[in-house]
């Protein structure tokens, strides 16, 4: 009886030792493989997050919105943003959109010009969405015949 108990305990010990070994080697192998594939450990340089969500910041990284701005392109977050991102930032930079201010007619004319001369494809149903987005978020600003000097950074001039 004692022999059998002892044997069972030994088996348990061996089982535990084996299990520990398997788990440890799995961890070590994984770590080694990981370090080999990502020597800079870039995955862990992000701010620590709950393991359940550890991948999600990578997923939203590309189309992150901060303070109402689509970070990657600098475009204002509003209805139609992604249609503009997908259709209007392939050939040229979003900076060209952002620095311009136009009414509906002129945004439309710009799209037509790009279709006629710049190989822009028919935008289909997205056209209205895009134009509405542009007119609502990048409308013309009244400047008159000369604006005031603005954002002056004052400094002391020593002669």
């Amino acid at each position, binding site marked *: 009886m004692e022999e059998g108990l002892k044997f069972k305990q030994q088996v348990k010990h061996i089982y535990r030792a084996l299990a520990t070994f398997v788990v440890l080697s799995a961890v070590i192998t994984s*770590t080694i493989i990981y370090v080999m594939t990502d020597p800079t450990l870039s995955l862990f340089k992000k701010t620590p997050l709950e393991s359940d969500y550890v991948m999600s910041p990578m997923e939203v990284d590309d189309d992150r919105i901060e303070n109402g701005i689509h970070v990657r392109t600098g475009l204002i977050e509003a209805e139609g943003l992604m249609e503009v991102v997908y259709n209007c930032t392939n050939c040229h930079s979003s900076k060209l959109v952002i620095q311009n201010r136009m009414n509906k007619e002129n945004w439309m004319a*710009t799209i037509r010009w790009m279709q006629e001369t710049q190989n822009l494809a028919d935008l289909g149903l997205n056209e209205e969405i895009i134009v509405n987005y542009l007119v609502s978020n990048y409308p013309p600003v009244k400047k008159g015949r000369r604006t005031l000097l603005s954002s002056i950074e004052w400094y002391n001039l020593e002669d």
Partner: protein
Amino acid sequence: MVIFIDHCNYCYTGIRQKIIFLIDIICYSLEYMKRRNFVKKAALASMISLVGIDIVFGSSIPEGYQPLALQDPDPFKLFDLDKGMVVLNDKPWNIEAQAHLLDDKITPNKHMFIRNNGLIPENIDANTWSLTIDGESAQEVKSYSISELKSKFQEYTYHLTLECGGNGRSEFDPPAKGNQWTIGAVSCATWTGVRLKDVLEDVGIKENAVYIGYHAADIHLSLDPKKEPISRGVPMIKALQDETLIAYKMNGADIPLAHGYPLRLVAGGWPASVSGKWLNGISVRNIVHDGTKMTGTAYRVPCNPVGPGEKVKDEEMCIIESMPVKSLITYPKTGATIREGTKLSIRGHAWAGELEVSKMEYSIDFGSSWDDCGIELPSNRLAWQHFSAAISFPKKGYYEVWARATDAQGLSQPMLLPGWNPKGYLNNACHRIAIKVV
């Protein structure tokens, strides 16, 4: 990255135990590496189609090296620019200076505006580069290597003012479409090369020649190899001027890549878009050149003046030739505060397209009174001219110093915006800086 996550989603369907998480990481890393290599290969492949030529020894490109198009697009490093330069657009590159950065008499590379219509060509080999002269009005089709140009023709060096036709566009109301240049799309560098007229003479031009149009190696934004991003030109009278160069040096060294390495047509005093970069062809035309951005509304203004926002038919738009009279106060930088009783030294440059600047004035009372200030003669025709003054202020307070140049024909810069035009060209309104006397 999004695409990759989609690929890897299957990794996350199980229970999130630690071991599974580690397997996830392995799976993720392997996928990531595969994807990275894929992207790099794909980018190289698309570059080959984009440049239209194979990348020689593409397979032996060192591990760490990425061709220009794939490099981290920090324009300040890429183009060796001053940190104060303002990036208006990064695809294509459009970068301007600020007034105080243009203080040098000869604009250094780091302060020179960049205006690109397409993508910068890659893998340029100056040794195999050739310039081909052709067109209806050329006696023959003739090609020159750069060394042939250098050995066959006399070399000339000039200081040439290049200003973008749309410099100042940002001020127009209603706004005009395009890069919203403020004041910094102008430069005056030293250009060295051979005269276009000498080369044209060597080829022989027919009597019916009207215009020349340039062709270049830059790449259309749509990557369509059949499209030229820009192909402009000048009438024969401008093409045959002494100062119109086929340049291979800027400021005494090879032309920087962003400014047209290895060859650039340089026609000072006209919209800088006629000074074609990465020049590889010139067509001598028997009509007004009809290349990209010569027709429609590009680099054209209404033949007759129009009201702000008016529609103008294409056929009522006329090609811009000489740029108008203009000036910039390059010292001090706007926003200077000085002590009462001290004099303020100002300086800057003035230019007038084909003409010389004959008078330079400044005002500290919004144009109620103007004071003459000294203006130097240009170092050569089409170079900008330098002015300076020492200004006394009557009492403490806020001032604006306005500068106004007058050209040899008596035309001055307006204080308000000049005539509105659909594309926002030729804004030569007076430049001004803010000063406080305390």
